[in-house]
Every structure is written in C-alpha cells, then in structure tokens.
C-alpha cells in the first residue's frame, strides 16, 4: 500500500532520507514545471527547483500539518520564484525588493527592454517564441507568477490565492493586469 504524504513526512521528520526523497518525487515534476515556466531558462529553473526543496528539507521538521503538504510546498515554490533574481544576463531584471506589495505593480521600463523586440521586429514576426517569452517575462513577478499558475499550470484562482497567501480578488487583479500588459506588448503580433 502506498504511504500517504503524512506518513512520509513523519518518517522524514525522523531523519528517513528515502521518505523525503519519495515526497520530493511525488511533487517535483509540478515544481519544476512552474519554475521552468517562470524562469524561461533551464539553469535558473533547476536552481529554483533546488532552492525550493532545500527550504522544504530545512522546514519539514517544523511542519505541523496545519495545511496540506502540497499547499505548503507550492507556497514555498511561489515565494522562491518571486524573490529570485536571475543569473542570466540576457534579460534585464530588477530585484523583487523594488516592487513592494503594490497590487498595481508594473515592470519598469528597463525590464521591458528586450533584445530584438522592437515594434518593427515584432511586426515582421521574427522569432515569435522569444517575443512571447519576453512579453511574459516583462510582467512584474506577481503578475507573471499568477499568469503562469493560471494559464500554464491550470490552477484555480482559489488555489493560487492559497499559494500566494492573498485574497482571490487580489489574484484576479494580478491576472487582469497581466492580460492587459500582455495585450499591450503582443498586440502587433496577433491583432
């Protein structure tokens, strides 16, 4: 019979490494999927994935089963992503600290700068994949995270609110802002 998450957590809390590994294998595909879509860069995504599970490992001894393990795990995942600063130099980014918790947050003009995404190049349709990625990347971290979780990963707004530890209305706001910004950025491509 397959052990439940609770069984595995209790064993892992007692120091059983294989139980922890089993727990990781149950969810790490989803975690990697989120980090891949958030980071757009394989190396960064793997770093984020590693950071998530290291934090889970460190925090597991204090896990008191007050929420589902998956909720806790994905909350850590979103936190790690939101506070992440890419090592990649290809795209310019600004630290999360520059955003604060303003729900109306937008990426700065500096962030929106992306090589080869001038209106002329967009309208010529060159390298469409990169243009779409750049547009999603240009969203503020919270807008991007919300959009990734909703559009790519298919989570419900209620679940995203739990992960981000905020109200459903706030998630909707991030989502609407994300769509509005993506439309601005991508309208030359699809309109």
């Amino acid at each position: 019979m397959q052990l439940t998450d609770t069984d595995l957590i209790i064993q892992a809390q007692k120091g059983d490494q294989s139980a922890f590994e089993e727990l990781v294998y149950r969810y790490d595909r989803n975690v990697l999927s989120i980090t891949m879509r958030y980071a757009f860069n394989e190396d960064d995504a793997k770093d984020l994935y590693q950071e998530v599970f290291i934090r889970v490992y460190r925090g597991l001894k204090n896990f008191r089963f007050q929420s589902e393990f998956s909720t806790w795990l994905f909350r850590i995942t979103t936190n790690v992503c939101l506070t992440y600063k890419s090592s990649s130099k290809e795209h310019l980014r600004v630290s999360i600290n520059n955003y604060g918790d303003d729900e109306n947050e937008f990426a700065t003009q500096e962030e929106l700068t992306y090589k080869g995404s001038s209106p002329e190049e967009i309208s010529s349709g060159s390298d469409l994949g990169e243009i779409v990625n750049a547009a999603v990347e240009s969203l503020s971290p919270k807008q991007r995270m919300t959009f990734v979780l909703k559009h790519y990963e298919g989570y419900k707004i209620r679940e995203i609110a739990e992960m981000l530890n905020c109200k459903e209305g706030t998630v909707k706001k991030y989502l609407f802002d994300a769509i509005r910004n993506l439309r601005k950025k991508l309208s030359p491509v699809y309109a």
Partner: protein
Amino acid sequence: MKHNEYKQLLQLSLFGELKSEEQLKLKEHLLTCEECRTELEDQKNLLELISGKKKAEVDEKVLTAARYQLRGALRSEIANKNIFGSTIDSIAQFFITPLKFAVVSATMLLFGILVGSLLFSKSSGEELATQNENENRFASLSEEISISNLRFIDSDASDGEVEFTFQASRPVRLRGKVNDPQIQSVLTYAMLNEQNPGSRLNSINAMDTEFPTQYDQDVKEALVTVVMSDKNPGVRREALKLMSKFPYDESIKQALLYVITNDTVSGLRIEALNSIIAAGSRGYKLNNEELNLFRQQMQDDENPYIKLRSKSILQEYN
C-alpha cells in the same frame, strides 16, 4: 451589471472560472454587445498565441538532472549540518572559553577592570596553560583577546549594576599529528568555513600527508562537501585529491558523479571521471541512472576527452 464588469467576466470565462449563472449572463450580454464580442475574440487570440508557446510536459532529462543536483545539494546540506555541529562542539570543548558571558558587574566604569580581572586574568590563562601542558598539545600565543558583538541586557547603571553579553576570542596555536582527532576537527572546520580560499586550501593540504593516517569520518564528509560546493576550483581540486585517499564508497561515488556533471572546470571533471573509471576497474559498478548521466555527458560535455571516455564507459557496460 456594468459594461466593465462584463469585461472582467470575459477574462474569467476564458480561464474557466465562471459560475454557470455568470456564464449565462455573459452569454446574453455578448448577443447584444459588439464591443465585448470583439474583446472576447481579441483575448482568445492572445491566449492562443501564448498557449502555442507552452511546452506540454517537463523534459525528463531536465528533471533527472535537477533531481541529481538536488541530491548533491542535500548531501552537502546534511554534511554541513553534521560537521558544523560536531566541530563546534569539539572546538568549544578544547579552545574557547564560553562565547557568551552574562556578566553582572558593578558599573560601566568597571568594565575594563572586570573583563581583565575576572575573565582574562592571568589565572584563567594559567588554567588553560596547565591543561595544555598536560596534554602537550597547544599553548596560547598571547593574552590578546578581541571582544566583539557587545550587547547590553541592562545598560542602566542607576542601581550600580549593568548586564551585557559579548563574544571573546583569542589566537590559539595548536601542534600535533594529523592523526589527532582534534587537529582533524579544526582543519575540517576550517576547510568548510574559512572565508579565505588560501586558508581552506592549506587546511586540506595539511591533512594530505604521506604518513599512514587514520581519518575521521567527518573529514571525508567535509571533503565531499568541498568537492561539490566550494567556489574556488583550486580548493576543489585539492579536496578531490585528498578524497582519493579514502576507501571508495557510495558518497564518494556520488561526489565524483556530481563533479563530472556539474563542475565548470574540465580538468576537475576529467579527474573525477578517471577516479570513477579506476573504481570501475576495481569492481565498483554504476547503476542505470548513473549510466544515463554519462549518456547525457557524452552528448553535452564540451570537452572531447570527456565525451570519448563517457562513450567508452557506456560501451563497456553494453
């Protein structure tokens, strides 16, 4: 319902977040509102464009590599935790007077006198020296004690008393055989925690002796950690060299595989690869997951020698 509210419903509808009654209302509105129909089409097009760029599944190769790196990181985490704890205990036992002093003294004016007379007086120095002489191990170089992180618990001297904590440290000289667990303990601590890479390197080299040496298990664990995580390639190289003196086991194998797949210095990857090959010739075999790493290495490594050797390893197993 206002027009703008319908616009929000449009977006939620596209994300499958509308209740059936809301969906119905929106449908009715769309029949009469040209602007919202255009809006709906526009957003559908946008999401289709973006959806076209999403990958269906997580790449298995990336997942395998991520899991492998995680295993290495966890190993470092565990080793660091164990070694840090035991080494601190060991060092504290032999060298350090308690780091945290809660001193209740007469007044702030007496601070220097009290520190000098109560804590760092000749008598406490002598006590240390006596112990050291008995064990014939080390002697205090000087009475120079540095004080840092002084924090007041009670700085109000109106009642004639103050209370504070601080950290005190002093230079210590230690002499002994590499076999000595205390020597190993300090050097192990230094190779993991010294800020200066030269000191970390020297700590490793100091343990690399031609004399028959019995190493503590912690030394091996620390070397595994250094090999996988030290930022300085020279330090990693020396750790790799010293690690080869230890009996080959699972943790060493994992460290070597980690270096082969992750180290940015090709010379270190080659050295680790050669160690794996040498172990293989002594009967230590690789499992399928480990062989997959060589398959990937054969494809991805920029170094032709590593590609070639990875290929030959795979051929041997086929």
